[in-house]
């Protein structure tokens, strides 16, 4: 019985850490900043048109090693969850279309890769309390978000190379949670 209590205690402690990790940015729980961006495929995507879907958003650049490490897992995630109403998007920050296109082909992304040519969207997604000394468009790079069906940010993880989660396990955990409960 004592052992059981300890195990339950440890699980609760683990869950509380998870919760803190996901909610340590001011944007969690807030409506996702609106955007309309052109994708490498030429189509225009906006956050408004994706309402009703769960959106997984990843900010990237072609030269970001952590972004490229996550890339195959994003593609895998997109394939796994596409028929469950989940839309994966990459927002590439301030790079040429030709370069982004090349990386898109390398990883065979089947989801849209959007071009934030002037960094304005990335700037909007920079939590104000994170790296206040840094140009704002640089802050979200390698960050992952989940935006729920109502357009609210439910998960936001910025780069943590010491505890790097290339396989997106924490994001998937939150995604499963949202899918099970609808839109808690």
């Amino acid at each position, binding site marked *: 019985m004592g052992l059981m209590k300890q195990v339950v205690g440890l699980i609760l402690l683990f869950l509380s850490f998870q919760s803190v990790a996901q909610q340590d940015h001011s944007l969690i729980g807030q409506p996702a900043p609106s955007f309309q961006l052109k994708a490498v495929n030429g189509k225009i995507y906006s956050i408004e048109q994706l309402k009703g879907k769960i959106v997984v958003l990843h900010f990237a650049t072609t030269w970001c090693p*952590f972004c490229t490490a996550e890339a195959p897992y994003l593609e895998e995630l997109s394939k796994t969850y596409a028929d469950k109403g989940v839309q994966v998007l990459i927002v590439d920050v301030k790079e040429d279309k030709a370069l982004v296109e090349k990386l898109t082909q390398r990883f065979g992304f089947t989801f849209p890769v959007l071009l934030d040519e002037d960094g304005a969207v990335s700037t909007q997604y920079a939590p104000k309390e994170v*790296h206040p000394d840094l140009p704002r468009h640089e802050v979200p*790079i390698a960050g992952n978000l989940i935006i729920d069906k109502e357009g609210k940010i439910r998960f936001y993880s910025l780069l943590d190379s010491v505890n790097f989660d*290339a396989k997106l396990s924490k994001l998937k955990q939150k995604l499963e949670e949202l899918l099970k409960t609808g839109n808690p």
Partner: protein
Amino acid sequence: MIVGLLVLVLLQNSTHTNRFVEDSVIKISVPGLNVHAGQSKIIYVQITVKKGYHVQANQLKDEFLIPTTLELNGGDIITIAKQSYPVPKKINLEGTDQYLLVYDGNFKVAIHFNAKETARKGKYVLEAKLHYQACDNKTCFFPKEIIFPIGLTIL
């Protein structure tokens, strides 16, 4: 702008002693060098990556990553023969079988050069550029370049 002014001051007031230039991530130091026309020598560029940061190495496995490179215009004074970069450090990407090749702490880039036979005696300041892309544990920063002077005396 500040770097430009610094280079200008050095051009006007060159003593060719050890000079350094720094930004928020990198500090570069190069000792002044004396060489005879026609002679071959090596310039050692001492680079310090500030604590908590790393920069991508010179030789990388991934064409998309930005390598650390050094650009030096020898003009009419010297010809660059080759550059040597140190052996990089491997950083494993947690949870994957991938790794990064990086430099952190202190490292040196050796520039092997030949002073041109036609180089006139005198003091010169050559302009060099270091291109790099840095990350710390929380962010990967946009690629940058830092301009620095290399003082050279043709004896």
